[in-house]
Structures are given as C-alpha cells and as structure tokens.
C-alpha cells in the first residue's frame, strides 16, 4: 500500500505563499496530475513530497507511514523525473541508470539485471555506452525515466517531464509513459501546465491555482462538472456570459446583460435576481439555420450574427455575435451540416444541461485570467 496523503501542506518563500493548505490523497497505482498555470504551487507541492523542499506545516503519509519533513529525499524511496532531465553529463547511459543502485550498495548481479531491464523498457538498448552530449532531448528524458524507475521505488514523481521536449515528441511520450507506469503498477504524480497532456495521461487531475487545489477529479468530471470559473476556463474551452436570474421553474432562466437574450440552465442553486456567470463549452454550442420553422419547434434558440469563421481542418471555430454584443464561439465539426458564412444570421442552441452557472465573482478578470 503506497497511498500518498497530503494533509494541509503549507509553504512560504519569504512573503510569497507558494502552497496554501494543500490536502490530497493519491491512491496506490494511480496516475495523478497536478495541473495549473506557472506559479500555482504545483512544482513546490511535488518537491515537498520528494523532500527537496521542507513544508512549513502539514503532514505527509506514504501508506500508513508518516514522513517527517526532515527525512531527506535519499531516504524517501521515490523516483523523480526532472523537466531539464538532469542526466549526469560525465556518465554514460548505463552509469546514469545504474547510479541509484550503486550508491545504495546493490550487489553487482542485481544491478546488471535491473539496469538492463529498465534500459530495455525505454528502448535505449542501442545507446548504453553513449554519453549524454551525444544524445537528443527525447533520448535524455528516456534515460531520466529509466534512471528514476531503476531505484525500484513505488512512487514516481514527474516534474514537467515533457516541458523541454518539442511538441512532436510529447504525444508519443504521453502514451508511452502512462503505459509504462501502469505496466509496472506504480503510483505516479505528474506536474504540468498543459491541460491536454493532463487529460491524456491521468486517472485523476488536481487543478491548482495560487497555491490551492480547486478541484480534483477524472478528466471527464473536470470537463463536465467544473466547480469554479477558473477550472471551466482552464480545462477545455468555454464561453462565459454575464447575466441575472429571471425566474426558476423547470429550468433557471438567465437574462444576459446589456439587453441580451434569455438562456436556460439546469442548475437550480440560485435565486431570482442573483448575478451569475454562465459557462458553455465551445463544442456544445449548436448552430441552426435562421428559419421560422426552427424557432417554432424550439423556443430555446438565440439569434446571432456570424462575424468570423476560422478553419482548423477537423473543425471550424465560428464566432457569433449576440444582440447585446457578446461573442459566443462554437466549435463545429467540419464539414458542417448546414451552410453559413461570415455575415449570416443564425440561431444558436444552448442545451440547458450544458449551461453551467457560477455566482458572479468579486473580480471577474482575476477568475478569467490564465496566468
């Protein structure tokens, strides 16, 4: 059992509170990602787990064992992968991977067996006697992974492991890394700012901002049920509209600001006249032809004008301006089922279950900021 439990971890650097009370349980064998923009405290949290930083307060457990903050990293039995690889430049591939066994005094036969196993797992058999300066960035990170795994640790910590790699290698790595971790049945905590990477690789994601965890859940949960404007904005792509609750019956009706149209939401946790922010995923915005017949069939249609269409191959990004000047963006599969162009008048349909509501925040710009 190597569940990892963090309980109310806090850490400040001078006057900057990097981690403000993080509590988290990572289950045995789970692949969990800490996701957030730069400076959100995700790396500090990971380093606290590794023992590379000492938390100011809080508790850490590996399984049932409480880990004192003073236990140095070398006694925590973890494997760590670094953003900039940190492959020892003066050692060849074999010596890098066998480093942990050697410093721990593992006997020769076992070193031989373990190291060749992990070098093989990351497909570096051909490069055992190469030195780091002869290798490419992706190969270096492969060494990094093999080196961390060769510790035999059941916990693998990954600090932006793909951050220094070209886009084109990342996809490949994501899939491979997840497979590797699952195959070896270890617990992995992965830090990244890339939401796609997080969704691709994780069992669960913890979204962090300004030193706190906002939400923990599966990629699907976070996508369907974000619990904060920031999460809705950071995971996937959403439109945000501002309005006031008009009435509540079967659905909550929201009158958009500036004399805008009324939209419907299934969320019923608000009262009449509450100011709210509605959030709608861009791929949930449906475009319908602007014909009488449509309006008769369905009263939940909003009028708008198309003011931009961007072609992205697999889909179109269509910007629709509403009567109050709000712009709603729709991601439409290409080729679209109906014809439209810039300047066309269209209806858009927002399904009530896809319209999420949040209380109007004190500082909207802050909630919507991504940095």
């Amino acid at each position: 059992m190597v569940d990892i439990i963090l309980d109310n971890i806090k850490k400040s650097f001078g006057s900057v509170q990097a981690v403000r009370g993080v509590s988290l349980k990572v289950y045995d064998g789970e692949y969990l990602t800490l996701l957030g923009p730069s400076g959100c405290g995700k790396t500090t949290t990971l380093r606290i787990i590794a023992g590379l930083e000492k938390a100011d307060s809080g508790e850490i457990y590996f399984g049932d064992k409480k880990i004192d903050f003073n236990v140095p990293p070398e006694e925590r039995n973890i494997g760590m992968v670094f953003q900039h690889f940190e492959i020892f430049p003066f050692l060849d591939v074999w010596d890098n991977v066998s480093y942990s066994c050697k410093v721990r005094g593992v006997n020769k036969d076992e070193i031989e067996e373990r190291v060749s196993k992990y070098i093989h797992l990351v497909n570096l058999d051909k490069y055992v006697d190469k030195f780091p300066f002869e290798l490419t960035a992706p190969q270096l990170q492969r060494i990094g992974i093999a080196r961390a795994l060769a510790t035999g640790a059941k916990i693998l910590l990954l600090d932006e492991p793909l951050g220094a790699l070209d886009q084109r290698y990342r996809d490949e790595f994501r899939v491979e890394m997840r497979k590797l971790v699952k195959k070896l049945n270890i617990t992995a905590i992965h830090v990244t700012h890339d939401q796609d990477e997080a969704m691709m690789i994780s069992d669960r994601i913890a979204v962090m901002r300004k030193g706190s965890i906002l939400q923990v859940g599966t990629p699907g949960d976070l996508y369907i049920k974000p619990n904060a404007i920031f999460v809705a904005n950071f995971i996937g792509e959403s439109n945000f509209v501002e309005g006031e609750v008009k009435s509540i019956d079967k659905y909550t009706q929201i009158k958009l600001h500036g004399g805008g149209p009324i939209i419907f939401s299934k969320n019923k946790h608000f009262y009449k006249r509450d100011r709210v922010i509605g959030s709608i995923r861009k791929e949930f915005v449906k475009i319908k032809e602007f014909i009488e017949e449509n309006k008769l069939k369905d009263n939940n249609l909003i009028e708008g004008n198309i003011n931009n269409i961007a072609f992205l191959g697999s889909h179109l990004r269509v910007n629709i301006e509403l009567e109050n000047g709000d712009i709603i963006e729709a991601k439409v599969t290409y080729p679209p089922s109906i014809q439209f162009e810039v300047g066309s008048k269209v209806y858009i349909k927002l399904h009530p279950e896809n319209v999420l509501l949040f209380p109007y925040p004190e500082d909207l710009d802050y909630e919507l900021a991504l940095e």
Partner: protein
Amino acid sequence: MTEIRLENINIKDSLYNINLQINSKEYLTICGPTGAGKTSTLKIIAGLLKPDSGRVYFDGEDMTDKEPEERGIGMVFEHSNYALFPHLTVEKNVGYSPRVLEGKTLKESRQLINYMLELVLLQNRPKAYPHELSGGMKQRVALARAMMASSSTNLILLDEPLSALDAKIRLALRYELMNLVKKLGLTCIHVTQNTEEALMVSDRIAIIHKGQIIQVGTPREIYETPKNLFVCRFISTSNFLEGNIIDIVEKGSYILLSNGKKILVSNKNFPIGSKVVIAIRAENIKISRNKKIETQNVLFGTVETSKFVSGNSIEEVRLTSGELFTLKRHATKAWFKEGEEVAIYFSPDRTLLFPYPKEGLEKAIDVF
C-alpha cells in the same frame, strides 16, 4: 502597403529555390517541421541572413543587398524572451526603433507609443522591465515594438511568436494577434511548426519541408487537397492504407488492399493497376461496436487506447491487418474501453488518394 517577392532563393544545404510572393495586407504562415528552413526564409526577408543566390523584392524594389536596419520591417523573435532589451522599460522597448522619431515631434511619438501600448493592453505597465512581466505580456511588448518599427512598410515578421507560452495562453493570443493584424492592416509573415495555429490565423499557408516549398494555399486548400503525403500527414493526423486500383466505376475507384479487402474512394484520377496510398483523416473515421454494420469501407480492429481530451474522444485502433489507426471525434467522454473489438468505417468522399511514393510510404509520411 508592402508586397514581398522571393525569387529563386538558395542557401547551400538549407534552402533550395524558394519562390514565394506575399501580397499586401496578407497573413501568410510559413509552416513546416523543425529544421525545414522556415526561420532561415524569414531571416532572409528581414536581411539578417544573406542568400547565396536569389533576390528579395519589396514592392518591386530589390532589397537583397540592403542591411536589416534599412528594410523598415518589424520582427518578433522567438528565443530568449522575444529579444526584449532587458535593460529597458516596456515603453522604451516599444519606442526603441529610431524610426519612431522620424518626422515626428517628441510629443507625437510619445502619443504613438501610448496608443500602441493601449492596443496591446499594456497601458498600465509602461515603466515595467521585461523580467517583471508574464510570458503573455512579454509577447505583447515584442509585438508592439515590432509594429512601431514597421510603420513605413506595415510588414511584420513573426518567428514562432507563441511557442514559448502555456497552451491556454497561446490560444487567447492567437485571437489577439489576428485581430491586431487585421485592424491595423498589416502584412504579416508568421513562422510556426504548429499546424493548428497556421490553419487558424492564416490567409495562406506555405508548407516548407527540407528546404523546399511544397505547397502554398489557403488553409482549406492545404487541408482538403494536400499536394503530397507529407503535407497530408503534416497538416493533420491521418491514417494510411496501401493498395492497387482494380476498378473504376461511376462513384469512384475500387482499391484492393493487400489483405484482400476492397475500398471505394471518390477519386477517379488514377488508372487501373496503379499502386496508390489512401489517406483518411483521424476525424473522418467513424467507429462502432456493431460489427455487422452495413456500410461502405468497413475495417475491423481492437481498441488499444481510448482517451478523452477536452471535448474530443481519441482512440487508437489496431486493425486486423496490423495498421494502427488514430480516430478523433467530438465527444463528452471516452466511449470505448481498451481491448474492445470494433468496426471502423469511412465515407468514400472523405478520403484522399496519392500515388505510391518512390521513397516508400514510411519515409513519405515521416513529418519529423
């Protein structure tokens, strides 16, 4: 108002016979994998790199031998914080170009700087130093600085302007960039290896590979009628099947795969007997658990991975014939489990047909 023309540009071992025209007020993207020669092409336009042969024209005037400072361009650099001057504040960076003062009073140029800062939403930070800004802000300062310097030509050159930013910010800045360029009527040449970015921001895209321009066209042209297998694979994830044309009917051509399966494609341009490659984009393949499905072009396989990523479901399916196919659809969750046996199918008119490449399929679609 500047029209750029590159004529037969060559640089030993890196660029071969580059011919390219960029129209006034056009947004053109030079797109290709790392090392293809994108940045070199841009530097030749800027004058930071001299070609071994060939000419560069701005509005018909030969600029080949002009120094970069005489070309009146604005450029945004990729590396090391967009080459913002670390010892100068935001406003001094933006107003650095000696051209800013040309023919203006100090007060006028001040106003211009302030106007530019407003455009890039930095009017509140004129006295900040680059190191005090976030990544997105630095990018905007670099853009403002380039625009200030290019007032005579309205030509700005962008070298991977968004690649150093977090994924989410990149998207937001794409919009800002497009809007600014259109609003100010700039001519813009943008270098990137990110195909989604290229498709989204450009009027036209020039695909460059191994020092040669392969295809120039609008995003739609590039996506729908890629000139060769490389462009097809590079612009969007695609799957490939090899076969021979065995029959041509009214609806299209029949192709026999090596495993005996027949595939129908709409394209009728290849004669019977020719060896061809069929390309099907990831987003054009449908998937079903129903293995008895009655439709054209059905293939069978096993789901190897199934992931949900931001509104898309992405599956990798290992076909019974051994190929690994990638599928991508708008969805709200991952619908398939690893190990499930499925049928996949695609419409004959959502396929592309290419002659079998001389260098072999694998080499032709190696886009890295």
